[in-house]
C-alpha cells in the first residue's frame, strides 16, 4: 500500500498549537507512508485538489488526512479521494483539531499526540479494504409525527411535492399548541384564522393520510425503508360513521371532565370534539370520565348518535406502514409550574398559565373570549404577568431560555387592554428577549401605547389577600421591593420537550439532550437532520421556537425529506457485518444479540451458518464483539483494524 498523509493547519486552528510540518515529517516514517505533507486548509478546494494531485503523482492507494473531526469532513474527503480515483473507504482521518489543538496549548504534547493519532490512522488504513455500496429501492412515503404547525407545514410541503405523507397525531385533532392560541405576535392576527385553512388542507390533500388520536408504536428498518407500526387508540366512536354533528357532546351527562384542549379552563364532557375547527371533526370518548366505563351504565351518547357510531367495545388497532423517511415534529409541553410553592403551587385559582390565559382570550374558548377570574368570574382590572417561570431557572432544572415567552407576554398584555380597556397590566421580567423581525418594536408598543408596566425583577411570592392576590417582587432597576395587588396573575411558563420525547427518540434511534429535545445532526450545518439517516426534525421538538421558526423548520425538514425520497434508489452503507462461513460454527450468538434482526441462520451443506441480511444490517458491530471466533466481522471496523490501532498506541 502507498499511503499519503496530509496534515491540515486549519489556518491557525490546528497550526496554532501543533507543529504540523513536524507531524508530517514523523508520519513519513510510518509503515507504508510514501508521501507526507502539511497543508493550509485540507477541506478547501485547493486542499482537496492537492490531495487529488498527490494521489495521482505518487500513485497513492490510501489517504490519511489529519484535521478536524471525521464527523464533520469525512464525507468531504471521501468524495475527494473518490475523485482521485480511489475507493472512498481507502481513507482515514485523524482528529487533531477537536481532540488535540482545541483542548490544550502545550505545543510539544499536542504535536506528539497528533503524530500518534496519525500513526493510528495509518495503521488502520493499511488494513482498509475497498467497499462498494449496494443499491436498494426507496419507499416514496413520508411519515410525519405530530400535527402541530411544524408537522402540518412539513406534511403539506412534502405532499405538494408529490410524496405520499402519513401524519400521526397523538391528540384527537391536529393543530397542536398553535390551535390553542388566540392571536399571534407580533402581528396580533388570529391564530386559528391562519392555521385553520392549513389544517383543512391536511385533511383534504389527496396525498396525506391522517391518523389522529394515534401514536407511533414501533419503528424498524432503515433509511428508505422504515417499517412503522401505528397504534390507533380506541376513540370508542367509529369515525367512518361519525359526522361531527356534536349531538353526543351536548347530551353527555358527564359534564365535569377535564378539558385538555382548553387547558382545564372550565369543564367539558366525556365525549368530546375538542374545538369547533378540529381536524378531523370527530367525537371521541375520554374513558377516564365516561360513566359507561366508570360505572358500567349510561350509554346516552350511543342512544343519541344519529349514525350509531358509538362503540364502547372498540379496541386499539394497529396499522403497519412502510415509509422512506420520517419527520419528527412532536413539539413541546409547558413545564409543570406547580413546583413553585412561592407562586401557590396551583392552589390559587386566579394564578393561571399563559396557555390557560390564551383560552380565556379566545372567542372560541370556554369563556367566549371574556376574561374572567376563575375564582369568581369577575373581570380583572389589575393583571400581573410573571415571566421566566421555569425558564432560565437552574433551581428547577430549566436553565435555558424558552425564547417565546417575552413575546407572547407582550401580546397578552396588549390583548388584555383590548379586552378590558380600563385594565392595567404589570409584567415582571428578567430581560426582554425580542430579536425577531418587528419583535422589539412590539415589546415597546405594549409599554408605550398600551401602558403595560414592566418591572425588572423576579417575583418572590404570590399570596392571597382579601379577594386579591398580592404579588411581591424585586424591582432591580429601582432597587427595592415592589408589591402589586393583582386580580389575576398570568405565569409565562416555559416549555420543555413534549412528554414521551425520550421514548420516541429511542424508537427512532435518535439522540436527545438532557431536557428531552432531539439532537440535530450538527448544530449549524445539519439543523433538521439527525444522526439517523432518514429521520428529520421540525419545530419545538428540536428546541423551543416560535411559530415562524417552526414553520421554517417544517419546510426545511420537508425539503430534506423530498430530496431523499426523490431518488429511486439509495446506496446502502457498506460498513456492515459479513460472515466468514468457513469459520462460523453456527452457534447463533450473533443472531441472539443483533438489535435489527439482520442475521439469519442458513443451511450450508447440512451445517448451520450465520448470514447477514445486507440491507438490514446497520453496522453497529455488536455481532462482531459477540462472535467468539471472530467469524463475523464488521467491514471498516474489523478486529484486525481495531487491533492495529491498539497496537499502534501500545507498541511504540
Amino acid at each position, binding site marked *: 500500500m502507498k499511503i499519503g498523509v496530509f496534515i491540515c493547519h486549519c489556518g491557525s486552528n490546528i497550526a496554532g498549537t501543533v507543529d504540523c510540518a513536524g507531524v508530517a515529517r514523523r508520519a513519513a516514517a510510518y509503515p507504508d507512508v510514501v508521501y507526507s505533507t502539511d497543508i493550509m486548509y485540507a477541506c478547501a478546494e485547493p486542499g482537496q485538489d492537492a490531495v487529488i494531485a498527490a494521489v495521482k503523482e505518487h500513485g497513492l492507494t490510501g489517504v490519511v488526512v489529519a484535521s478536524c473531526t471525521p464527523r464533520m469532513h469525512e464525507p468531504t474527503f471521501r468524495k475527494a479521494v473518490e475523485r482521485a480515483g480511489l475507493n472512498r473507504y481507502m481513507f482515514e482521518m485523524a482528529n487533531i483539531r477537536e481532540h488535540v489543538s482545541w483542548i490544550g496549548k502545550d505545543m510539544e504534547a499536542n504535536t506528539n499526540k497528533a503524530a500518534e493519532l496519525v500513526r493510528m490512522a495509518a495503521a488502520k488504513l493499511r488494513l482498509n479494504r475497498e467497499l462498494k455500496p449496494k443499491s436498494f429501492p426507496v419507499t416514496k412515503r413520508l411519515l410525519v409525527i405530530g400535527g402541530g404547525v411544524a408537522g402540518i407545514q412539513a406534511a403539506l410541503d412534502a405532499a405538494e411535492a408529490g410524496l405520499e405523507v402519513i401524519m400521526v397525531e397523538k391528540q384527537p385533532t391536529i393543530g397542536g399548541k398553535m390551535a390553542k392560541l388566540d392571536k399571534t405576535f407580533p402581528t396580533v392576527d388570529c391564530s386559528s384564522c391562519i392555521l385553520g385553512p392549513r389544517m383543512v388542507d391536511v385533511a383534504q390533500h389527496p396525498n396525506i393520510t391522517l391518523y389522529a388520536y394515534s401514536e407511533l408504536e414501533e419503528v424498524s428498518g432503515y433509511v428508505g425503508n422504515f417499517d412503522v407500526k401505528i397504534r390507533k387508540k380506541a376513540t370508542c366512536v367509529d369515525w367512518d360513521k361519525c359526522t361531527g354533528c356534536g349531538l353526543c357532546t351536548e347530551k353527555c351527562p358527564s359534564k365535569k371532565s377535564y378539558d385538555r384542549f382548553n387547558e382545564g379552563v372550565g369543564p367539558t364532557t366525556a365525549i368530546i370534539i375538542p374545538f369547533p375547527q378540529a381536524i378531523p371533526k370527530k367525537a371521541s370518548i375520554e374513558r377516564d370520565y365516561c360513566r359507561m366505563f366508570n360505572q358500567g351504565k349510561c350509554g346516552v351518547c350511543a342512544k343519541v348518535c344519529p349514525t350509531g357510531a358509538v362503540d364502547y367495545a372498540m379496541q386499539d388497532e394497529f396499522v403497519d406502514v412502510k415509509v422512506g423517511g420520517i419527520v419528527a415534529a412532536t413539539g413541546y409541553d409547558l413545564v409543570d409550574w406547580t413546583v413553585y410553592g412561592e407562586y401557590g403551587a396551583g392552589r390559587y385559582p386566579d394564578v393561571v398559565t399563559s396557555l390557560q390565559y390564551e383560552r380565556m382570550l379566545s372567542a372560541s374558548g370556554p369563556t367566549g373570549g371574556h376574561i374572567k377570574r376563575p375564582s369568581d368570574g369577575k373581570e380583572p382590572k389589575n393583571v400581573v404577568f410573571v415571566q421566566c417561570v421555569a425558564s432560565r431557572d437552574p433551581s428547577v432544572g430549566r436553565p435555558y431560555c424558552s425564547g417565546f415567552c417575552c413575546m407572547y407576554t407582550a401580546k397578552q398584555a396588549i390583548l388584555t387592554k383590548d379586552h378590558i380597556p380600563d385594565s392595567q397590566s404589570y409584567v415582571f421580567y428578567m430581560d426582554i428577549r425580542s430579536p425577531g423581525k418587528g419583535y422589539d418594536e412590539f415589546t415597546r408598543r405594549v409599554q408605550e401605547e398600551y401602558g403595560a408596566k414592566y418591572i425588572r425583577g423576579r417575583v418572590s411570592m404570590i399570596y392571597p389577600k382579601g379577594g386579591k392576590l398580592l404579588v411581591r417582587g424585586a424591582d432591580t432597576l429601582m432597587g427595592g421591593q415592589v408589591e402589586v395587588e393583582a386580580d389575576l396573575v398570568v405565569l409565562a411558563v416555559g416549555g420543555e420537550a413534549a412528554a414521551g420525547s425520550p421514548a420516541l427518540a429511542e424508537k427512532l434511534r435518535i439522540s436527545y439532550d438532557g431536557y428531552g429535545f432531539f439532537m440535530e445532526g450538527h448544530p449549524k450545518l445539519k439543523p433538521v437532520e439527525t444522526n439517523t439517516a432518514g429521520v428529520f426534525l421540525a419545530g419545538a421538538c428540536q428546541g423551543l421556537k416560535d411559530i415562524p421558526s417552526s414553520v421554517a423548520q417544517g419546510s426545511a425538514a420537508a425539503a430534506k425529506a423530498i430530496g431523499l425520497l426523490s431518488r429511486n434508489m439509495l446506496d446502502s452503507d457498506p460498513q456492515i457485518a459479513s460472515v*466468514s462461513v*468457513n*469459520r*462460523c*460454527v453456527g*452457534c*447463533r*450468538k450473533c443472531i*441472539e*444479540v443483533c438489535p435489527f434482526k439482520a442475521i439469519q441462520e442458513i443451511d450450508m451443506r447440512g451445517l448451520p451458518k450465520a448470514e447477514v441480511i445486507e440491507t438490514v444490517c446497520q453496522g453497529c458491530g455488536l455481532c462482531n464483539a*459477540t462472535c*467468539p*471466533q*471472530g*467469524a463475523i*466481522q464488521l467491514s471498516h471496523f*474489523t*478486529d*484486525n483494524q481495531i*487491533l492495529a490501532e491498539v497496537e499502534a498506541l501500545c507498541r511504540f
Partner: protein
Amino acid sequence: MSIQDELKSAIKAALPDLSCVIGWGAGPEPLRAAPLFIRGEADLQNFSAGFLSVNNPALYLPALKGSKVGVVAKGCDARSVGQLATETLIIREEVHVIGYPCEGVIDVDKVAAALAGVCEPGEVGALREDGDNVALDTPKGEVRLAKKDIAADKCGRCIFPNAENADVFVGIRRAPTVVEDAYADIAAFEARGTEELKAFWEKEMSRCIRCYACRNACPLCVCRDHCIAASREPHWIGQTDDVPDKLFFQVIHAVHLSGRCTGCGECERACPLGIPVLKLKRALSRRVENLFGYKAGIATGTPPLLTFNIEESTIKERDW
C-alpha cells in the same frame, strides 16, 4: 444392586436408541480412568463410574450433535450438558443423561503430594476403593489415603453433586456441599495484591507450551477448530513463547467463558504443566453470579452476556 450395576442396566436399557453412551472405563494406569464410548453391550464390561471418573463426558457432545447420544454424568458434567443445551450448542432431546450421585473425583496432583517421599503417582501399582478411603499399592507397600484429602478442589465446594437434569437418575441423591463463600479461594488469591499476582502469572505462564489442552478439554469451547488463538484473520495473538501472548490466550478463554463457565475445572486438570488457569474463569463466574445471579449450567434462559435489562439494578456505575 450396586450403583455400578444400576448404571450398567440403565445404559443397557438406553443403548438401543442411542449411537453410543459416553462413560468411563479403565485408563492407562491405576489412578486414571479413560473416557469410554459404549457402542454395544460388550463394551459395558469395561465400564465403571466412581472416584476415578474425572473426565467430563459432555466435552464430546457438540461434535456429536445430530445423533442421539447418552452420557453418564456427574453433577458437574450435567451442568455442562445443561449449559450446552441452553446455548443450543446441543439439542437437549438428543442427549440421554444418566445421572448418579457423585462422591467426588480424584486429583492426581494431590495424590502426588500425599505420596511425596514414597513414590510418584505413576508408580502406583493398584488402587482399591474402600468406602471413604483408597488403598494404593506402592513400591514401598500399601498406602491408605482419605478420599476427601485427594479429591479435586471443585468437589469440596460442590453444590450440584447430583445430575438434577438427568433423564434417568440412579442411586440416592447426595446433599450438596454447603459452603459459606464458594469463591473464598478467589478472594484470598486476589488479596495477594496486584504486584504479587502479576509475578505469579508471569511465572506460571512461562511454563505454558501452548498445547491448548485447557481449551480442548473445555466442554464449552466450541469454536475449537476456529479458535482465534491461532488465526491470522482476526489476528489476536502472536505465536511467540512470550508470557503476554500466552497469557492473552487465557484471557480470551476466560472472557469467552464469562457467564458460561460451569466450573468443571477440566481446563486446569488438563494442563500438563499444572498452570491454575481455572482461577481466571472463577473470578469472572463470581462476578457474573454476583451481578446477575446466574449459575451457568443450573440456570436456564439466555446467558447473561447475551441479554440485558434496560435498568440494571445490580450494576453500580461510577458516579463521575
